[in-house]
């Protein structure tokens, strides 16, 4: 059974450094075209089904803005 992951990005903690899209091996993340409360272009999930739960993005994030949870497949 394929594992399903939930990626949560706290957009207002993101400073738009762009490290996480770079760290993701599956192009799950992309920088937004909108700005967050602080005025930064934040990271967002654009292709969740591709996520393999490696957590590289969460480890890479200097501001601990990314959480990865494994969900039970329906």
């Amino acid at each position: 059974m394929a594992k399903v992951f939930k990626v949560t990005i706290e957009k207002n903690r993101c400073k738009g450094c762009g490290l996480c899209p770079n760290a993701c091996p599956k192009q799950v993340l992309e920088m937004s075209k909108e700005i967050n409360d602080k005025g930064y272009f934040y990271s967002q999930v654009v292709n969740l089904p591709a996520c393999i739960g490696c957590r590289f993005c969460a480890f890479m994030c200097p501001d601990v803005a990314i959480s990865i949870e494994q969900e039970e497949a329906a």
Partner: protein
Amino acid sequence: MEKVLMKGNEAIAESAIRAGGLCYFCYPLTPQSEVAEYLARRMPEVGGAYLQAESEVAVANMVYGAAGAGARAWSTSSSPGISLMEEGISYIAASELPAVFVNIVRTGPGLGGILPSQGDYFQAVKGGGHGDYRCLVLAPSSVQEAVDMMPLAFDRADRYRNPVMVIGDGMIGQMMEPVEFKEPKFPPLPPKDWATTGAKGRKPNVVNSLYLDPKAEERLNNVLAAKYEKMKREEVRFEEYNTDKPYRVLLVAYGTTARICKTAIEKLDAEGIPVALLRPISLFPFPEAKVLELGRKAEFLLSVEMSMGQMVEDVHCAMGHEKPVYFFGRSGGIVPSPEEVVDAVKSRLEGGKS
């Protein structure tokens, strides 16, 4: 002390507290807001004063007042906020008071954007506010260096009785790096016998920047000029990189761009093109003599900046017409990549555009 991982803005705040900067006034502005956020929590713990003012104009005048009363007063802001503070900074310089201002530079002109820039070089180095004054300007290129600079900034502000500007950029403010808080030792400072601490048993001290008598005003201008000449003799700071062997090109860069230049130099070295870097740490006083000395050994100089070309004027001024001085920069918040710097060097070596 142990190394801790800290964001640049928070590390600057903690370092200032440890240096005795217990009078802090601020107005939040991205990308330096974390300084204010950190100190809002930390200042009450150490018995310091934290006040968020109604504007940066008010901030600068609060710093002016606290400095006049003998406190180690300081503030932080980012480019548009520093512009608003410049009037107060001019008054502080004229009144010969010590104060430290940190500018976490963002893009401009105008409100600009919140990404890293070095577009405030002119403002910081050439005066900023009105009148004949200078700030001692220090530019860190890592979070550790920013931490080390804060005690130095407070010490030199007190020693010269002049505002000191620490100029970082959005990158230095937002980046997290391991830092160690050292306890630097400085020679004892003269007592602040000019401070307005209450005139009991002595003549009142007056903090003033108004001189209607032209002779008195010129006397002040001469006193200030003498300070800046002393800074030029004693406060020049820089780092040399790769200058111990022959090189073809001398890069001149400060702050974040200097780090990018170091990576570019490694890449160029691998291609057999020896390149050196001079990183000014003090922007005023500018290491003019060093630029000339190192520049003479190169075919040309390249000033690399996150601006449209500001420090390049000082490099040119120092170098005269002895060697060509070129410029490469990105702006708008775009941080140049090492590859772009490599290309900028190579295109000029091949006699391309100048």
